[in-house]
């Protein structure tokens, strides 16, 4: 941030742009490196990030608000998102079989449950914690570090979510038995 004049940058002033490029190219490079294949592609992604930033008269760059987050944080997010978009464009959409829940793959003759999930049964954070635990196979400590929360919060979120699910499915199973 320090020496970068954001207003001059948004006005498209060449010296400001050059200073910005010189200062943040390394950061963008580091952000996209884990997503890139070795070789030329890395440079392509970095160029795509810079192109996005200055495209349409610096439209994306003008959305940056220094009061909400640091420029490095924001740029890393932009760079990673750009890299993911590029990978998506190049690769056909493939879902690895391991990431599909077993229930989705089962071919049992059980009739499909006609259950409507109540909206908001689980909070977004509860869904996120369960997804990370059971689909990404992450450890509690890892999740806590990723979300910048206490490991105890992860455990309690998980606990509350499971209580809700158990209660919900218990009611549903009882109702089915009665029928």
């Amino acid at each position: 941030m320090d020496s970068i004049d954001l207003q001059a940058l948004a006005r498209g002033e060449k010296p400001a742009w050059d200073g910005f490029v010189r200062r943040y190219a390394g950061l963008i490079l580091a952000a996209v490196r884990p997503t890139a294949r070795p070789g030329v592609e890395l440079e392509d992604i970095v160029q795509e990030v810079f192109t996005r930033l200055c495209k349409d008269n610096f439209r994306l760059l003008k959305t940056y608000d220094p009061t909400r987050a640091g420029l490095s944080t924001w740029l890393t997010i932009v760079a990673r998102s750009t890299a993911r978009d590029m990978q998506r464009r190049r690769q056909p959409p493939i879902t690895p079989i391991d990431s599909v829940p077993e229930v989705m793959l089962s071919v049992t003759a059980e009739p499909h449950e006609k259950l409507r999930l109540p909206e908001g049964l689980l909070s977004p954070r509860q869904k996120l914690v369960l997804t990370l635990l059971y689909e990404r196979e992450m450890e509690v400590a890892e999740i806590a570090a990723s979300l910048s929360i206490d490991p105890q919060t992860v455990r309690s979120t998980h606990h509350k979510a499971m209580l809700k699910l158990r209660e919900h499915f218990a009611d549903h199973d009882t109702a089915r038995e009665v029928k």
Partner: protein
Amino acid sequence: MADKGVEAQDRRLWQRWRALGEKSRVAEPDAMLLAAYAEGRLSEAEAEAVEAWLAATPEALSDLVAARSTDHPPIAEERILDQASDLVPGSTMPAGAEILPFRPRPPQRLPQWRTALAWSSIAASLLCASLVGFSMGSDAYANLSGSQAVDTAVEGLGAPGLDSSYFSDDSST
């Protein structure tokens, strides 16, 4: 977290719930919102929107982790910098900078007395060199013409037995 049996039960319950629920389509939050989330600057309501998207796109979680650890980035190669720099046309000169035309520096003027002294020194040197040269030339001429006159005189005498070695400075004679 819990014992294996309970964990397996929980996992099955989650999978059952997942199988029933449609993968909700949550619009991707903009980069500013994600960056603020990464820095923990969002209100609870705003954070919920981000977490709903993350639950549907868990692979993006690594972006947030990367965004929090941006210390000591590598130095980009000049080629990358040049390519990025070329994206924005224009002069690299700062706005408001003034171009000054090249003007040759005016010759430095020495004080008059120093100029006079310099010229006098040159003139004196030339005069000295001329005088020395002239005197050396005169001496050489005198020597040459003197020896020639003696030779002529000796030849004029026609004395037999006298040769030029007679006039040499050989002390043995």
